[in-house]
């Protein structure tokens, strides 16, 4: 990763032709501006979460049929699969934010990566535990060391490693840099989780929604699944914005204390 750190691109360089996406990312680097936007988005995300959850739970628990092979246990899918998707999605988001923070010294991106870690870890934990509760009646065991389950556990450890590392240094800038590098290294695990069910013989079933040829799942089960996945996504946005706000305040306190100490 050292080449990335050695070649920082500065915003003021007139030779760099910035794309509109870059300009938008730059625009959000101002914490005050970010917080104004966050204050407006948060209630929308919160109400969307409540509405989508209500619809998803109603369809999932009352309207969707039992599976012909898995009977009623298929309902665990509506909390298991969205949690697993979000575990992966949050990791990629965290790594992208960490990369943007590392390369462009983007302060809000660093905070977004830090704020995402506990949310992604929670989703990954839920995917593992609900999967375990689904495994017992279907496979006869709570746990098996197959490629999908093991790589998902590794994902949880990457999150926990990131959280430990980002808080491990007295100088928060060092913690941010080290943990960002760890987050980027861990990206290698994401395709391993996704394709583990194809690359190896696993007890875990293969993909039935995000796969070549489109979903092979009946709409009566696909709809509650998608609604729950959208609910988890808006929940992530809501909590992420809350936590970034908290992190911005924490950074301001730290900066003010430093100024006080160094006069």
């Amino acid at each position: 990763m050292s080449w990335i750190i050695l070649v920082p691109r500065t915003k003021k360089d007139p030779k760099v032709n910035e794309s509109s996406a870059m300009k938008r990312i730059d625009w959000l680097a101002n914490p005050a501006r970010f917080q104004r936007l966050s204050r407006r988005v948060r209630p929308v995300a919160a109400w969307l979460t409540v509405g989508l959850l209500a619809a998803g739970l109603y369809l999932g628990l009352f309207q969707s049929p039992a599976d012909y092979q898995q009977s009623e246990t298929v309902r665990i899918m509506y909390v298991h699969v969205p949690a697993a998707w979000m575990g992966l999605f949050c990791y990629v988001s965290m790594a992208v934010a960490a990369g943007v923070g590392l390369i462009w010294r983007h302060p809000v991106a660093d905070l977004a990566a830090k704020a995402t870690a506990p949310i992604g870890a929670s989703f990954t934990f839920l995917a593992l535990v609900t999967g375990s509760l689904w495994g017992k009646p279907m496979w006869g065991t709570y746990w098996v060391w197959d490629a999908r389950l093991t790589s998902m556990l590794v994902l949880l450890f990457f999150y926990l490693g990131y959280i430990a590392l980002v808080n491990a240094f007295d100088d928060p800038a060092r913690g941010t840099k080290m943990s960002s590098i760890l987050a980027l290294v861990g990206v290698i695990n994401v395709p391993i989780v996704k394709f583990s069910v194809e690359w190896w013989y696993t007890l875990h079933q293969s993909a039935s929604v995000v796969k070549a040829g489109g979903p092979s799942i009946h709409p009566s089960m696909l709809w509650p699944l998608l609604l729950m996945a959208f609910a988890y996504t808006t929940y992530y946005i809501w909590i992420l914005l809350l936590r970034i706000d908290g992190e911005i305040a924490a950074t301001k306190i730290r900066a003010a204390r430093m100024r006080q100490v160094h006069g």
Partner: protein
Amino acid sequence: MMESISTFLNMGGHGVFIWPSYLLSALVLILLLVFSLNFRKNMEAALGAFRDEKDAHK
């Protein structure tokens, strides 16, 4: 009525696996929400207190 509720909760004998999945998901997501709300509130309060302290010294 009572019978249909208990049939629903029983979930064909699999309720013992299904309900813990839903309850644990709810618990973790609600706790994360509460912790995050508290984290933000405490940090903003600390920042406010710090600014008041600074103003008092002026």
